[in-house]
C-alpha cells in the first residue's frame, strides 16, 4: 500500500513546481490524481472492476499486463468520450460508450494477440472482459462525458494508474505468498530477455497455495481494503481540527 501513497506524494511534488498562473489547473489535476490513486481508487474504494482484479493477479506479470491494457483502454475511451460528448444523445449514451470501449478493447486484444501471445493466453477471457470493467464505463459516464478532453485524459490516466497499482500490489502479494517469486513469467509480457527478471523472494519448502487460489484472492483483497481504511483513519485522526461548519438554515416562511 505504501507504493500507492508514495506515488501520490510524488505527484504532488511534481505539480508543486508548476508556475503560479496554472494554479487553478494544478489544483484540479492534483485533485484528480489524488482521487484516482487514493481517495476514490477504482479498485479499493469504488470496488469496480473486481473481476479482473481478483482473477488475473496470481502473478505480477499478469497483473501488469492487464493493468496496462486497462490503462490504455481507459485513457483512450475517456478521450474519445470527452471528444464526442456534445454529439451523444442522452438516452443512448451508455450503449455508445460501451461500444466505444468495446472497440478499443478489441484493438488492445488484437495488439496483444500479435505481440504478447503468451500473456494474451494466460489472461484468457479477462482481456475482452475489460469491456465490462465498470471502472471504465463509470469514468466515461461520470467524468469524461462532462469534462474537456485534457482533464478527461488525465483522469483516465490517474484512474487507470490507480487500478493498475492495485492490480500490481495484489499480484505481488499473492505471488510472493503463493510461489515465493516475483515477475515469474515476465517473458510472456516483455519477451524472452525478461525471464531473467524472475526473483525468488522467499524460499518455501511448501507453497502457500491459498494465496493463488480464489479464496486467497478475496482474502488478500479484503486485507488491502482494510489497510487502506486503517491508513485513512490514521490520517483523519491526525487532522481532527474541528472546523465549525455553520449550518445555513433556510426558512420556510416569508416567501412561501
Amino acid at each position, binding site marked *: 500500500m505504501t507504493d500507492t501513497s508514495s506515488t501520490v506524494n510524488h505527484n504532488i511534488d511534481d505539480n508543486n513546481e508548476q508556475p503560479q498562473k496554472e494554479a487553478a489547473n494544478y489544483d484540479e489535476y492534483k485533485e484528480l490524481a489524488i482521487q484516482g490513486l487514493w481517495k476514490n481508487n477504482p479498485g479499493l474504494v469504488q470496488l469496480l472492476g473486481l473481476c479482473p482484479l481478483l482473477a488475473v493477479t496470481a502473478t505480477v506479470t499478469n497483473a501488469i499486463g492487464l493493468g496496462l491494457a486497462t490503462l490504455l483502454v481507459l485513457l483512450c475511451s475517456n478521450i474519445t468520450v470527452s471528444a464526442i460528448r456534445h454529439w451523444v444523445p442522452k438516452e443512448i449514451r451508455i450503449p455508445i460508450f460501451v461500444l466505444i470501449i468495446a472497440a478499443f478493447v478489441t484493438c488492445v486484444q488484437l495488439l496483444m494477440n500479435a505481440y504478447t501471445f503468451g500473456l494474451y493466453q494466460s489472461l484468457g477471457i479477462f482481456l475482452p472482459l475489460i469491456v465490462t470493467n465498470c471502472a471504465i464505463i463509470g469514468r466515461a459516464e461520470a467524468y469524461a462525458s462532462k469534462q474537456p478532453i485534457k482533464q478527461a485524459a488525465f483522469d483516465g490516466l490517474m484512474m487507470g494508474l490507480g487500478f493498475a497499482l492495485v492490480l500490481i500490489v495484489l499480484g505481488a502479494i499473492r505471488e510472493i505468498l503463493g510461489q515465493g517469486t516475483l515477475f515469474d513469467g515476465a517473458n510472456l509480457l516483455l519477451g524472452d530477455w525478461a525471464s531473467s527478471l524472475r526473483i525468488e523472494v522467499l524460499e518455501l519448502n511448501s507453497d502457500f497455495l491459498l494465496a493463488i487460489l480464489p479464496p486467497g484472492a478475496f482474502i488478500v483483497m479484503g486485507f488491502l481494503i482494510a489497510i487502506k481504511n486503517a491508513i485513512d483513519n490514521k490520517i483523519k485522526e491526525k487532522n481532527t481540527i474541528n472546523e465549525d461548519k455553520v449550518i445555513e438554515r433556510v426558512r*420556510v*416562511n*416569508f*416567501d*412561501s
Partner: protein
Amino acid sequence: MESIINRINQQKFWSFHGGVHPPEQKTLTNQKPIKPLSLPEQLIIPLQQHIGRQGDLLVQVGDHVLKGQPLTKSTNPMAVPVHAPTSGTITAIKHSVIAHPSGLSELCIFLNVDHQDTWVERTPCNDVATLTNQEIVKKIADAGISGMGGAGFPTHIKVDTKPDINFLIINAAECEPYITADDLLMCEHSESIVDGIKILNKLLNPAFILIGIEDNKPKAIEALKKATAGIEKIHVCVVPTEYPAGGEKQLIQILTGKEIKSGTLPIKEGIIMQNVATCYAISEAILHDTPLIQRVVTVTGQALEKPQNVWALLGTPVHYLLSQCGFDNQGMEKTPVIMGGPMMGFSLPTDTVPVIKTTNCILAPSYKEMPSAFEGNSAEVECIRCGQCADVCPTNLLPQELQWSAKAKDYPQLNKLNLSDCIDCGACAYVCPSHIPLVQYYRIAKAEIRQQQQQELKAEKAKARFEARKQRLEKEKRARELKHKKAAEARKAAMNKATPEATEAKSAVAAALARVKAKKAANQKSPSSSAISAPVETTENQDNKKAQVAAAIARAKAKKQAKPAPEIDAKENAKVEPSNTDSKKAKIAAAVAKAKAKKSQEKAPIQGQEQNQEQTDSLSLADKKANAIAKAKAKALAKKQASSNNDSSTASDLTIASTAESEPAIDEKDAKKAAVIAKAKAKALAKKNKESNTDNKVSEKNTVNVEPRKVQNTSETSTINDTNNISDKDAKKAAIIAKAKAKALAKKKLATQSVSEEKTMHEQEKGAK
C-alpha cells in the same frame, strides 16, 4: 366449547411453548397467615396507581380526611379514584418517587396518620340482586378498583357488560416463584373471592367460569373447591406449575387451547380474565362498601428475618414494610429491593416508594439466593446463539435475533420478528448462558419504537399543519397584494394634497415604488428590495403614522432577507393603529431595537446596504456622524423612554443620556458599528451608483429629509411613550432590552474593535462622491 369443558373436567389441559421452572421459594411465606400491619406514621399516595389517567384532586394540603374518603375524582373513563387508606391530615401534595421502574417522580398525596382510623360513612349492601348492573359497575369504579395482578387496568371498564362472554377466567396461577399473596388470600378469604366471582358472573354472564390455579398451592385449591362446591358454572382448574403460566395469554392457552391473535384483546374471543385479588376487592366494594385501600403484599426474601404476607395500606412506604419484617442488609454495600417477583419485578431506587394497587410483592433477596440480582449487567458476554432462549420463550419468539436487532436498533427488523408480542416474562434472560439482559434490551427497543411511532404521528400532523399553513399564506399573500395595490392608490391621492415638501417626497416615493416593483419582478428575494422599500415607508413618517412605520422599517431591516411580508406588515400596522399614543408602540420599538442590535453584528453587510441609501448623500462629516449615532440610538430607543423629550433637535442629547443611563460604552460602540456598516455600504454604493442614476437622484432628494427625519423619528417615538405613564411593564422591557443589548455588544466588540471611526468616515465620503 363443550369439548373444552370436557377436557377441563378430565383435568386435561393444553400447554404453551417454552416456559421455565425457577426454584420455588413460596415456602418462605406460604405457611404463615397474613399479618395486619400497624399503622405507619405517614402514607404516600400516588394519584395514579394504574394504567390510564390520574383523577382530579379533591383535597388540599391541610385537609383532614377520613378512612375511605376519595382523594381524587375520576373525570375520564380511564381514570379511577384513590382513597384515603386511613384517617389523617394531608401535609403535602408534591412530586415523589413512585412505584415505577424509572424511579421518576409523580404527584403524590402525603398523609400524616392520626391513628384514629376513623371510617367515612359506609352503606353495606346485603343483597347484590337488588343492584342493577350499572350500579355495580359504578360502585366498582368509585371504589377505585384496577387489576391487581400486575398491569392495573381499570376493572370497571373490563367488567362493563359485554355480550357473549364464553369464559370468565379467574387468574389464580400466581406463577412468580416468590409471591404467595394470592395464595394466602385464597386460603383465608375464599368465600369473599367467590362472592366477587358471583358479582362478576352477574355482570358478565359468561358461559363458564374457570379458575386457573397452579398445583403448587394445595391449600388454596382445597379452599376454593370448598367455596365453589355448589356452583356448577365454576370450574377450578389445577394446572401444572410452570413459569409464566400466570400470563394472560398463556393461561388462556392452557385452559382453553385458544390463541389470542396478536394485537387483539381476549374479549374478541369471548374471554375475560380477572385476578383473584380483584375479585376479593370487588366483593369488598360491593358488599361492604369498602374502597380499595389495602392489599395483601408478600414481603419476602432471605434478607428478611420474618418474611410473610401482610395487609398493607396503599401508600405504605417500602421501608416501613421492610422494617416490620426485619430487614437485614447482610453487610452488603448495595442490596437490591425488588417490587414484584424476581422474574418481572423491578428494583426500587429508594425506600420511600409506596405500595400501590398493583404491588403484590416486596422482595429483598440475599446474595446467596439471587447473586445475579447483585451483579447488574456486568456478567454479560456475547450471544453464542445457543437457542435456549427460543426454547423457553412462551410466545415462540426468537430472542437472540431480537437481541441482535435491538442492539443494532434495527426497528423494522424487530417488528418483523414480532417484538411487540414479547410479554417481558424474562424466561429468556433467566436461561441465557451469556447472561445477556435480554428483556432490558427489548424494553428499550419497545420504548424507542413507541416513541418513534409517536414521532411519526406527530410528523404526519406537522406535515398537515405545514401544508395548511402554506396554503393559508398563499391566500393571504394574494389578498395582501390586492390590499397593497389599493393602499398605494390611496396614498397617492393623499399625497397629492400634501405640502410641497411632501410632494417632493411623493415623487421620490413613486420612483422608489417603481423600482421596487421592477426589482421584485426581477428577483423577489433580492435584499435590496427591502432596502428600497424602507425609504418608501420612511417618507411617510411626515404623517402621523411615523412611529409605527419607523418600527416597521426597523423590523424590515432586521429581517435577514428582504421579503415582501414585512413591508406589508408595516402597512397593516399603520392601518390598524393610527394613534401614536398606544403604549404598545413602545414595546415594538423596544423589540425592534433589540432585533437590530442582535442582527446587526451578524448581518452587517446586508444592513449596510439597506441603510446605504439613506446615508449616501449626507452633507457633512458631522452630519454623518450624527446620523450614525442616531441610528445606533434607534436601537436603544426603548430605553430612552424615561428620559426622552419632545424636541427633535436634542436627539443626540437624548441618546447620550440614555446610553449613559445603561452603559456608557454602548453609545461609542454603536457609533463604531454604524461606521463599519457605513463603510461596507460605501463600497456597495459605488457600484449601485453606476447601476442606476435614478437611485442616486432619489437619495439626493431624500438627503435633506433623511437626517432630520431620523432624529425626529426617534424623538417622536419617545414622545409617544412619554405621553403615557411609564408603566412597570415598560421598565421591565427596558431591562430586558438592556440585557439583550449587553449580550449583543459583547459580540460586536469583537467584530468591530479594530475599525476606527475616522477612517470609516473618510471612506464614506469617498463613497458619496
